[in-house]
């Protein structure tokens, strides 16, 4: 909170007048301590407050805040009431009283209690077993969307199907609390909540299988060539990889090499390859390679 008289103390160009100017300015500051308005010292957003005035007669009152600018005729010596709506936005306000000359005082309106949490979680899909792969940021706001800067404890809770929920408490700093964690071992929905008192925000991260692991294939000759297929394709944690994951089959027939890309469908990738002689078939998906399969020539 501060007070000032609003006549500019700037226009003293001549050196000789400088000392006089300084005295005038100091005198004005001294007068400002007795400014005819007393502003609230602990105003809170969304709560009515009043400004006390001294003196007598009529004056014009102005209020300039972060989202408001108002002008009102007032009687000096009476309180100026400010409604809850006029003080909804947290920040600095300047109250000005003009009766002949103008006096002003500055005051702050603090945010209210936390009423909403803005909760940002990334990513929306994460492969299992990813180190520090999931993070969340919670921002605390009051009911008027002012950032609540007072420290508060946000509880983050992570719940995955088939595993014990884990939680951690993080204190906000300048209205922000955040966490970072690794993804779990099992594919499925990971429920993440951020709560502060009775305010809760929930998000879901879909944990998906990681890259294929331990690829194994089997095959047989048919009338059209060779039918090869994988065993159920899983990641290293045993989660079936999603449909559409590409498996590349390679057949080596002497000096000839042929490739077929096949998508996984219901855990298995399947392909028919044309080869007459004895062939060696292998499969790969991502960085995983499978066993080699030797099939004799067609009779």
């Amino acid at each position, binding site marked *: 909170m501060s007070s*000032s008289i*609003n*006549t*500019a103390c700037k226009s003293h160009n001549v050196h000789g007048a400088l000392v006089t100017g300084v005295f005038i300015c100091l005198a004005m500051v001294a007068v400002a301590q007795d400014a005819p308005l007393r502003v609230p010292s602990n105003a809170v957003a969304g709560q009515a407050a009043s400004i006390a005035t001294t003196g007598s007669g009529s004056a*014009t009152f*102005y209020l*300039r*805040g*972060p*989202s*408001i*600018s*108002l*002008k009102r005729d007032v009687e000096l010596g009476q309180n100026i009431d400010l409604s809850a709506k006029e003080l909804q*936005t*947290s*920040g*600095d306000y*300047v109250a*000005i009283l*003009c009766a002949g000359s*103008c006096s*002003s005082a*500055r005051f*702050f309106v603090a*945010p209210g209690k936390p009423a909403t949490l803005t909760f*940002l979680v*990334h990513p929306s899909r994460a492969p299992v077993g990813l180190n520090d792969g999931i*993070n969340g*940021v919670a*921002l605390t706001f009051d009911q008027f*969307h*002012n*950032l609540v*800067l007072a420290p508060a404890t946000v509880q983050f809770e992570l719940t995955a199907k088939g595993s014990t929920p884990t939680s951690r408490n993080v204190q906000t*700093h*300048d*209205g*922000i609390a*955040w966490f*970072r964690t690794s993804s779990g071992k099992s594919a499925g929905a990971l429920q993440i909540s951020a709560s502060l008192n009775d305010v809760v925000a929930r998000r879901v991260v879909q944990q998906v299988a990681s890259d294929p692991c331990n690829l194994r294939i089997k095959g047989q000759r048919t009338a059209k060539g060779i039918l090869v297929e994988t065993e159920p394709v899983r990641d290293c944690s045993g989660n079936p990889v999603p449909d559409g994951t590409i498996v590349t089959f390679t057949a080596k027939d002497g000096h000839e090499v042929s490739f077929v890309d096949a998508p996984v469908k219901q855990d298995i990738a399947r392909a028919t390859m044309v080869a007459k002689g004895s062939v060696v078939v292998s499969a790969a998906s991502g960085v995983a390679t499978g066993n080699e399969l030797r099939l004799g020539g067609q009779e």
Partner: protein
Amino acid sequence: MKQDYSYMKHHVRMRVSAMILLALLSSPTLFAADNAPQVTLDASKTSPRSVEALTQRAIVRDYKFAWTNLDAAMESNSAGLLNSLFAGTANDSLRGTVSSQQRTGMTSRYLNQRHKLEAVFYAPVGDVIELHDTAEYDFEIHDGDKTIHNEHAIVHYVVLMTPGADRWVIRQLQAVPQF
């Protein structure tokens, strides 16, 4: 004759110099440069993610642009100037000020701005940054032609910015008594 020619040459040179000087002094870009907010950013203590040099430059550029337009919007009571630089709560609040200034016939100015920004939080994936701004400016409030308030203000702001398609936008601009 030769002396006359020399005199004329000197006279023309003087006039050209004077015209160039006049043109420079009256150039709006020169004044714009002088009145443009000065913005510095210290991102040395940011966590959990460090702010890349290119991002720092973009934030300084866009914050400066935002305050230039904020001053212009408050001077001319044109809320349109706030578009695309302020979003969400910050935009709503400033629009509220502009519309109530229009109703009351008031205007305000933020002159000789200097902003010392400190990045205090940068989200792990870079989708939100929190800044502390120690702003210094000459704050004027006018009722019509009459100046009713004029002070050299030092104001502390907590600022939230998020990246847009091609710029950083201010989502929260909240003054606090101190950091």
